[in-house]
């Protein structure tokens, strides 16, 4: 049986990532991509919801350190993510499945590559433990 391709949800800040091209253009190249204004807007609720809905990994692309349009949104995001690792661990979700990458790419050309790298990392980890979404579906079907 062919291995299931890991699902990566990507949040990216519009101030540094792909602002020179249209959203449609980026969306055509990326699956599960959510453009946001400032990574400081990302709440642990959003990340947990992504994992709950079956994401195998979450990649967050923020502005370079010192370059946040709102002063320190990217640093706030880093603080949240660092604390969130403790929570994910309790659910059996490895640290590598959540990554914050700070940088800039106005044309968004590197985004598919960054997602691919994340996909490769996550693939090496294997299926997510504690992910009952697939089991649940089969259980419901047999009912």
């Amino acid at each position, binding site marked *: 049986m062919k291995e299931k391709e890991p699902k990566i949800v990507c949040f990216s800040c519009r101030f540094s990532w792909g602002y020179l091209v249209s959203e449609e253009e980026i969306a055509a190249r990326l699956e599960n991509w959510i453009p946001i204004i400032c990574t400081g807007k990302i*709440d*642990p*609720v959003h990340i*947990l*919801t992504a*994992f*709950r809905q079956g994401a195998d990994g979450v990649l967050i692309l923020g502005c370079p350190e010192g370059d946040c349009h709102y002063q320190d949104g990217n640093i*706030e995001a*880093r*603080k*949240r993510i*660092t*604390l*969130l*690792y*403790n*929570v994910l661990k*309790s*659910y059996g979700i490895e640290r590598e499945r959540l990554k914050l990458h700070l940088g800039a790419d106005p044309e968004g050309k590197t985004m598919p590559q960054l997602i691919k790298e994340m996909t490769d990392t996550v693939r090496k980890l294997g299926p997510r433990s504690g992910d*009952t*979404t697939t*089991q*649940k579906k089969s*259980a419901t079907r047999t*009912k």
Partner: protein
Amino acid sequence: MTDKKKVAILWLGSCGGCDETIVDINELILGVVNSVDLVLWPIALDFKYHHIEKMADGEIALGIINGHVRNSDHAEMAKLMRQKSQVILAFGACACFGGTPGLANLRSKEDIFRWVYQEAPTVINPKGVCPQTTTRVDGKELTLPEMFESVHSLDHVIDVDYYLPGCPPPPYLVLKAITAFLENTLPAKGSSLASHKALCDTCPRNASKPNKVAITEIKRIHEVEADPTKCFLSQGIICMGPATRSGCGESCININIPCRGCFGHIELVADSGAKFLSGLASMIDAEDEAGLEKISDQVRDTMGYLYRFSLPISIMNQKRLQSDEVKSDD
């Protein structure tokens, strides 16, 4: 026959503290008892479940249920109460959110059984005896309720009309809730019968909270002599006040203990643990990533802090609920 409103009080997976708080209304309970007809209260009165089974649907005006749902017996009784009651009140943190026992959801049922009946150092069980749902003894069949995969809040099993949070709810709120019921002044269905503010809003130490809390080191309450007048968070002690509903009377704060979150989430918050984490992160004052990691490591028992009373209703744990399919035999 009496024309008083019938009230039933039931405990499911409960420690008894919620029943105790009803008793703690003290002499005022006599007034309550005079104005209603108590038809069930297992901890205090000798009514039988089959009395309830014989009642007409909706005959009970108010069904008060405390405790979480962990096994088939809990689910069955909860459903019976729903059928016979016009109004169901989820009473206490366990019924509202799953409560402290909900932290067991971090382990599987198999893990729990293995530990309790085999691996715990205090267990001597050479025959590997483990409770079964049916056992034959002397030609007779004995049955036990089936333990579910996880702990559930009451509203995951039956429709709940009102919530009274707390571990346990303070007597003044109990009296207020029962009075509102008797006087027909209950708010909209689905409401929590407690304050709509966050604990920080009503905390006596609120004034001492600096505009920007900057935590450079996280300390546990037993490790320090906490200043009884200052905001706990400003002292680097984790206090769930920002993400917890008020209404408890600040009973913990008043004895110099930080809030643990037994009143649960504030209105419209999906996951109070995640929200608190977000707030805590913004208070952390670290110079670099290494400093941030260091402070993060100082949070001992993250899940115990964030989800002490609410793991079964948290975003990640909801998933497990459906696999149990408690509602399936409806």
